[in-house]
């Protein structure tokens, strides 16, 4: 093994870690929603590309950097998620999985095709001023946009952690997730908590979309890919576990980058799906999940 190869490998791993942070934030939304109300959001990737399109439109038409429009998108997504849960999903909590699947499939079809109808099938990316900047850390070169996106994802994940551990409503949500009946008994408004949870999950994925558009361009066909990617990440990390989602994101980010370096890039998702199958069989609670949850 030459030092050139080792350097390329280290470079790929670093790139994978940075992208993986954004993946982790996206998956965090899915994990929070599932962990609290046991609903698998089959429209997750579709929500992600809506976030990407909004950030792209903000840059294209109003010259607003995605890092500036991100808080707005997150707030908008929070209210959209809140309304979606209240209006559509609420009666389906506790219903058979195939019914939830069909409901969210309907939502997914509408979201992705509204994007298609409004923006069209072409891919849209943005050119930030920092597009070609980079930071040098020892022998490694870090893309500025990727680094900024990763830092953004870390900050948002940290805020989310504060929300769930420090605020009253965050603690109530965790209580309702732990013991639904108990939460009802002590008088928590579980229906509202569920709506807030879906809002928070949606805000995560919207924010992840705003960060992701700085790294890669968006097309409607990305939606299904991101839904599957988010599934892989949360299962590998542990469905319902927050740290698991972040760790899963990093792992999948690195595995994609390394697979792209060592093998045919078109095989990269085969690695991810292979990893998913292994984890499902050997440790279905995920790498960081607790047994029996």
């Amino acid at each position, binding site marked *: 093994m030459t030092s050139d190869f080792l350097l390329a490998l280290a470079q790929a791993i670093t790139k994978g870690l940075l992208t993986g942070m954004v993946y982790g934030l996206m998956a965090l939304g899915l994990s929070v929603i599932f962990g609290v109300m046991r609903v*698998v959001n089959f429209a997750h990737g579709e929500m992600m590309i809506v976030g990407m399109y909004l950030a792209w439109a903000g840059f294209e038409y109003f010259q607003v950097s995605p890092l500036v429009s991100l808080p707005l998108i997150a707030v908008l997504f929070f209210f959209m998620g809140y309304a979606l849960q209240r209006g*559509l999903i609420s*009666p389906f909590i506790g*219903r058979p*999985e*195939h*019914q939830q*699947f*069909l*409901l969210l*499939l*309907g*939502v*997914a*079809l*509408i979201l*992705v*095709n*509204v*994007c*298609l*109808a409004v923006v*069209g*099938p072409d891919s849209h990316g943005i050119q930030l001023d920092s597009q070609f900047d980079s930071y040098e850390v020892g022998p490694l070169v870090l893309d500025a946009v990727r680094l900024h996106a990763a830092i953004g994802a870390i900050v948002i994940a940290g805020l989310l952690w504060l929300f769930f551990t420090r605020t009253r409503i965050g603690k109530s949500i965790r209580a309702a997730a732990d013991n639904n009946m108990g939460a009802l008994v002590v008088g928590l408004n579980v229906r509202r908590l569920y709506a807030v949870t879906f809002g928070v999950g949606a805000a995560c994925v919207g924010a992840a979309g705003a960060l992701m558009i700085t790294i890669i361009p968006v097309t*409607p066909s990305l939606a*299904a890919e991101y839904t*599957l990617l988010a*599934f*892989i990440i949360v*299962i590998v990390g542990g469905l319902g576990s927050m740290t698991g989602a972040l760790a899963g994101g990093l792992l999948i980010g690195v595995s994609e980058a390394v697979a792209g370096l060592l093998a*045919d890039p*078109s*095989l990269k*998702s*085969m690695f991810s*799906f*292979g990893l*998913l*199958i292994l984890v*499902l*069989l*050997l440790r*279905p609670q995920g790498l960081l999940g607790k047994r029996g949850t």
Partner: protein
Amino acid sequence: MTIHRRLLSGVAPRILWMLMGLLALLIAAPYFIDKYALSVLILILYFAYVGQAWNIMMGFAGELSLGHALYAGLGGYVAAGLFTHYGLGPWAGVFAAAAAAALAGAIVGYLGFRFSLAGVYFALLTIAFGEFTRIAFDHLDWFGGSAGLFLKVDVAPNPFDLRGGPVLFYYVILALAAAAFVLSRLLLESRLGRYWLAIREDAEAAQAVGVPVLRYKLMAVMISAALTSLAGVWNAFYYNNLFPETAFGIGRSIEITLAPIIGGLGTLFGPIVGAVVLTGMGEAFTSLGDTLGIPGIKQIFYGLALLIIVMYRPAGIWPWLSERLGLGERPR
């Protein structure tokens, strides 16, 4: 009980006559409908057939598979590969196709059930196997890789090689759909079917009274997979091309599940009613979309329709409809 009694016991003569009438009508249909109507009817029968096959696993045995494209795709690729490379006709190739699909089903099912994955986790495992196979087929040159596998079309019509016009394919898929309907009824009225329902309702209780749960779940997956592969073979020869992206993609898997869920899980008529409703909607929205000229508008209406159906008829259309019509097939 003889097969004949098992098939007919408890069926009102009125319903039997209606079914015979429907079958006669469908057999005569190519002689009095135009090409477009025939193509719509072909689509309906195709979705009714794959829905019936999927329903055996989900509706009867209660295992949610969102990766049935794996079995349809394998079936299509095996039969088309044998035909293209060795000239082996699909009537023989279908046995290899069904065997390959049943084996794949056995592997997915064994791993899933052995490690007791249930519900969403099992569904995600089936998706993962489908996607894994899709990417693998992108790199299998014998099957044409990502560039696709194309069947010879410049040959004389020959029913023995399943080469011919839409009418040939219409009768084949009609026969398949009718056979799958009868088979589902037979299975449901057999010991096997009763075991499936017991497992679906409460697997632990079934195990406790001595039902070999793992074995019967595996049989459900393998039968469902083998039946689905026949649709894959039919599909490959009807459209004359195969691409990993469409043959194994998640979209194919999802469209297989829709007719039975919309129509009514675990019922015999559900997949048929669902196929009629979905195909009808699809055609109507396509022409509406063409009129409006906005890309994606068809799918937006389709998504809205799915939402409305699942919100107002979560158990499917057929259980409600049959009650209204006084036919009374309840989901079991």
